[in-house]
């Protein structure tokens, strides 16, 4: 027991918490030595290419593969029926979402194709190029069926019902009714109603989805080099559907080039690749190309929300109502389901405010488009855009500053723990301090003065806000309770080597966000070892503890705390040995900068490397009844709260060219509170990157479909992602309200940027156009839509 026992990690000397320590994996990536799934080249490896449906809805009358199979270099052509023999279908529902339904989904389509891009056959050949050539030799006789494309018509009586086992295209409906909304609206000074539309977009990871499946028939063992953000979940899923024991599956995902949620789902082409490796008993690689990424990755958003707010003349929110409709493609995605996003919308709308009367309806409908599922800031941009726009419209109607109205309706910072209107516990938020800090950073009055001056010159600038709460550090209440094999706990293993270095295993994954840096910093602090003597291993189900992986802004908060706990244990174990060797009480000693020191005055007594040497090579010099334990593992699961909610507030400043409809973003500010900031640079960049993705949804990104369900812009020339030239300076400020659930006190920081940016931009845009009586509520806000709102076309 060291003298520091009982003190928090925040009391550690030589702490690396709160310092922008460079990421240990950067040199590897910058030298081109990253190890992505596509970098894996195995002996006897074959390549898969998938035949994808050209139609949004069609019956597969027949598939002829004999010509394709004759080609030299082709090893096998698989149809949906072939894969179904070795890979069982899945059902993407969670049992806690009552009434959620979705039919079984096969890895490769059997009998029917339900979206343009659905895989229905695969060629395995000696090269990807040959496999693609041979795809053209597969003859498929399709019978086109009418597609159900438009989600607004999906529930009409005459709509094509996609799954004949159901009476209509409804996948799930949830209703919330708190208080008396009708009475609240009746008592309101003003009631504002508005309809909001959010385009369907997708994730666009730099590294596309990738998998190399290597089935070893000798050991009956399937190794999957896989670009994923949830290795243990994938292990469980592959085991279940390929009928292998979990210990016979190993998932390795060293480097992942961006994930954004889209790599946390089951994809048919990936399962088929694993199945084909098992059948052929050879390694098989599949790397999605950009065109099939657009049709094969999950899509996101796609909501139409009717919103209504009632406020008193003092600006108090009296009632709020939303009705959300979302189209999710033909299946609810496995295993997280396609209902979580709308569930979040219902849970989070107005979440930054205290009010009592709330009514919400959410409907999820099937349609013949690619499956929609969780993507960065699940549901948040929808909930926040709707609530924050309604707040600004209401504030404008009662002639009140919108930020003043926000602050009036936010809980005081000392009024926690608290609950949302739907009863979700909020542990510790800082809306007041955050909004006050934001207004100081923005220099609001100066912007307003400039705005008035420029308007008289025909220049239209606007400023808008978005305040929010964000779900982070989810407990099993998120997925586990619904029956999904998704762990909410994480683990950290630490091994001291004979030279005083630490080998650390973490169950979260590195996907470019710096997870390994954060774990390294926490361990360095908790143990007293400098970061260059720490190696972090992630993304390997055989060599790391069991855990959830990296999604829902959970890595630092949950795996970071596991690292705190493991660090404390090994420090104590090391000090126990040191105490024996130095004939001192362990609690009078500490570890600082790789040295055993006297806790009181820091006097160096011996090195940790010497401890390693003695434990491993000269254990004979230690007492007979003492066994040193220089490898430890600890786990952590949040239990007191279902989620560690964070809060943040955005401000967007922009200029609209009312002649062309172009929007120029001038500046964007965010104050966010993720509790303990372990690595300020990483957190700031997470927020900035998140803001950029929010800008994407607000201004650029949209999957454009025709009425036959054909994607018209499935390439990076026509599907617009935000690029550097168009981006504003993004200024990030922090308030640190720690969660008391953990010693580290960290909440998540991964999604606040994406969650709030669209709301702030919409409000700034409508603020700019207010004197022209134009209003936009349909994202993305394209020049065409701006000009339409201005009545110019």
């Amino acid at each position, binding site marked *: 027991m060291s003298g520091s026992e009982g003190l928090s990690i925040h009391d550690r000397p030589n702490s690396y918490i709160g310092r922008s320590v460079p990421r240990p994996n950067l040199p590897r990536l910058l030298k081109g030595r990253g190890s992505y799934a596509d970098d894996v080249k195995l002996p006897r490896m074959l390549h898969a290419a998938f035949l994808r449906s050209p139609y949004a809805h069609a019956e597969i009358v027949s598939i002829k593969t004999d010509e394709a199979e004759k080609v030299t270099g082709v090893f096998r052509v698989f149809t949906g029926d072939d894969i179904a023999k070795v890979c069982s279908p899945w059902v993407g529902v969670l049992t806690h979402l009552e009434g959620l339904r979705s039919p079984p989904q096969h890895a490769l389509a059997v009998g029917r194709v339900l979206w343009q891009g659905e895989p229905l056959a695969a060629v395995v050949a000696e090269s990807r*190029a040959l496999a693609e*050539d041979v795809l053209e030799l597969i003859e498929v006789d399709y019978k086109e069926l009418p597609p159900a494309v438009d989600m607004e018509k999906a529930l009409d009586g005459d709509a094509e019902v996609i799954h004949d086992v159901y009476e209509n295209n409804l996948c799930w409906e949830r209703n919330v009714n708190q208080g008396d909304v009708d009475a609240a609206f009746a008592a309101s000074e003003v009631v504002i109603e508005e309809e909001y539309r959010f385009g369907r977009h997708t994730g666009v990871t730099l590294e596309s989805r990738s998998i190399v499946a290597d089935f070893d028939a000798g050991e009956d063992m399937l190794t999957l080099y896989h670009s994923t953000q949830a290795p243990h979940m994938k292990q469980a899923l592959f085991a279940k559907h390929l009928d292998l024991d979990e210990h016979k599956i190993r998932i390795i995902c060293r480097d992942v080039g961006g994930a954004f949620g889209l790599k946390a789902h089951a994809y048919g082409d990936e399962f088929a690749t694993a199945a084909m490796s098992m059948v052929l008993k050879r390694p098989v690689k599949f790397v999605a190309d950009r065109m099939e990424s657009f049709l094969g990755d999950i899509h996101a958003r796609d909501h139409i929300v009717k919103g209504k707010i009632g406020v008193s003349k003092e600006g108090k929110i009296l009632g709020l109502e939303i009705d959300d409709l979302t189209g999710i493609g033909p299946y609810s995605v496995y295993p997280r389901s396609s209902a979580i996003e709308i569930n979040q919308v219902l849970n989070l709308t107005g979440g930054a405010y205290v009010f009592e009367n709330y009514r919400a309806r959410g409907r999820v409908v099937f349609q013949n488009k690619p499956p929609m599922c969780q993507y960065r800031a699940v549901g948040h941009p929808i909930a926040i855009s709707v609530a924050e726009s309604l707040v600004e419209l209401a504030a404008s109607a009662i002639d009140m500053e919108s930020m003043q109205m926000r602050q009036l309706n936010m809980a005081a910072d000392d009024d926690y723990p608290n609950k949302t209107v739907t009863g979700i516990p909020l542990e510790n938020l800082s809306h007041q301090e955050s909004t006050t800090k934001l207004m100081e950073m923005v220099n609001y009055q100066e912007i307003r003065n400039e705005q008035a001056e420029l308007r008289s010159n025909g220049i239209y600038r606007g400023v808008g806000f978005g305040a929010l709460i964000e779900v982070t550090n989810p407990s099993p209440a998120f997925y586990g309770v619904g029956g999904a094999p998704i762990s909410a706990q994480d683990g950290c293993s630490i091994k001291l080597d004979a030279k005083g270095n630490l080998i650390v295993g973490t169950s979260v994954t590195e996907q470019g966000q710096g997870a390994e840096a954060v774990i390294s910093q926490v361990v360095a602090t908790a143990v007293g070892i400098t970061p260059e003597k720490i190696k972090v291993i992630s993304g390997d189900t055989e060599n790391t503890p069991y855990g959830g992986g990296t999604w829902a802004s959970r890595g630092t908060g949950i795996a970071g705390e596991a690292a705190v706990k493991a660090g404390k244990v090994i420090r104590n174990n090391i000090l126990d040995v040191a105490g024996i060797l130095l004939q001192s009480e362990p609690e009078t000693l500490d570890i600082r900068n790789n040295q055993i020191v006297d806790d009181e005055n820091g006097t160096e007594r011996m090195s940790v490397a010497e401890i390693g040497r003695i434990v491993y090579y000269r254990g004979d010099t230690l007492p007979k009844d003492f066994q040193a334990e220089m490898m430890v593992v600890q786990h952590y699961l949040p239990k007191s709260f279902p989620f560690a909610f964070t809060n943040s507030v955005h401000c967007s400043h922009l200029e609209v060219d009312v002649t*062309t409809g172009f929007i120029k973003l001038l500046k964007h500010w965010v104050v966010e509170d993720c509790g303990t900031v372990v690595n300020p640079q990483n957190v700031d960049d997470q927020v900035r990157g998140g803001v950029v993705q929010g800008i994407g949804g607000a201004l650029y990104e949209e999957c454009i479909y025709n009425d036959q369900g054909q994607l*018209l812009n499935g*390439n990076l*020339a*026509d599907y617009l992602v935000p690029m550097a030239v168009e981006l504003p300076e993004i200024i990030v400020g922090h308030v640190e309200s720690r969660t008391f659930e953990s010693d580290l006190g960290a909440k998540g920081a991964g999604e606040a940027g994406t969650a709030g940016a669209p709301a702030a931009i919409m409000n700034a845009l409508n603020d700019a156009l207010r004197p022209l009586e134009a209003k936009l509520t349909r994202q993305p806000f*394209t*020049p065409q839509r701006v*000009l339409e709102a201005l009545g110019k076309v």
Partner: protein
Amino acid sequence: MKPSPFDYVKPASLGEALSLLSDSDGEVAVLAGGQSLMPTLNMRLSSPSLLIDINGITELDGIEVVEDVIRIGALTRHQVVQSSADIAQHAPLIAMAMPHIAHPAIRNRGTFGGSIALADPAAELPACLCALGATIEIAGNKGRRTVSAVDFFKDLYETDLADDELLTAVEIPVLADGYRSAFEELARRHGDYAMTGLAAHGLIDGDKVSDLRLAFFAVGGTPVLAKNAAAVAEGKNIGDEMISAVQSALEKDLDPFDDLNCSAAVKMLYAKELTSRALKALIR
């Protein structure tokens, strides 16, 4: 995203390339900078049986001023054109257009001749050549011929270039006394193909403009010379009233279409706005 199999050949001379072109009976593609061709091949939008790589034909590369024309070899990279002092001096319209052509990485590989031969209706350079009255030089087995830029662009991705010919150079008259250029473009993001663009060139005397050529792009299958608008502008001082008249005349010149980014109505609105901006720029 792998191309269909094709044969590849890299001729060392123009003559060799032309022989290959005329001797080939299948579909042939000419590889210059590859910035449009390679994606097309990888997306299997075209599957040529033979790829003729002309990057070894050094005589097609380079910029030179010969008497009253500036000659740009077909293989000259956009980046070289962009940084050329001769281009800046003698064909400033081209220099103005260059930063709008995609991004530096693409300009480093993409070639001037490639952009012209591809004839993308939303590309900048075809319109510039039409505005400048440039001449396209074409080589075939029967020798060399020239065609004016306005006659070269026939329709969407269709040019006067025959299957057995190669575009070898572009000749632009050097900037004559009193002539000025303006370039305007609206694109969703910097470097994207234009929603609407305009290359303008004319003789400026004080505020008076004559011999005006307004070449629009991304509003039709080819660059469109707005002749009615130019006629309205002829000999007039550039000012608000004149600009309105020129804008109205555009209705007779342009018949734009909807694309993924905007409607025909927006393109017409943009054409008018860019006309105003360009005319004002000509006298600035």
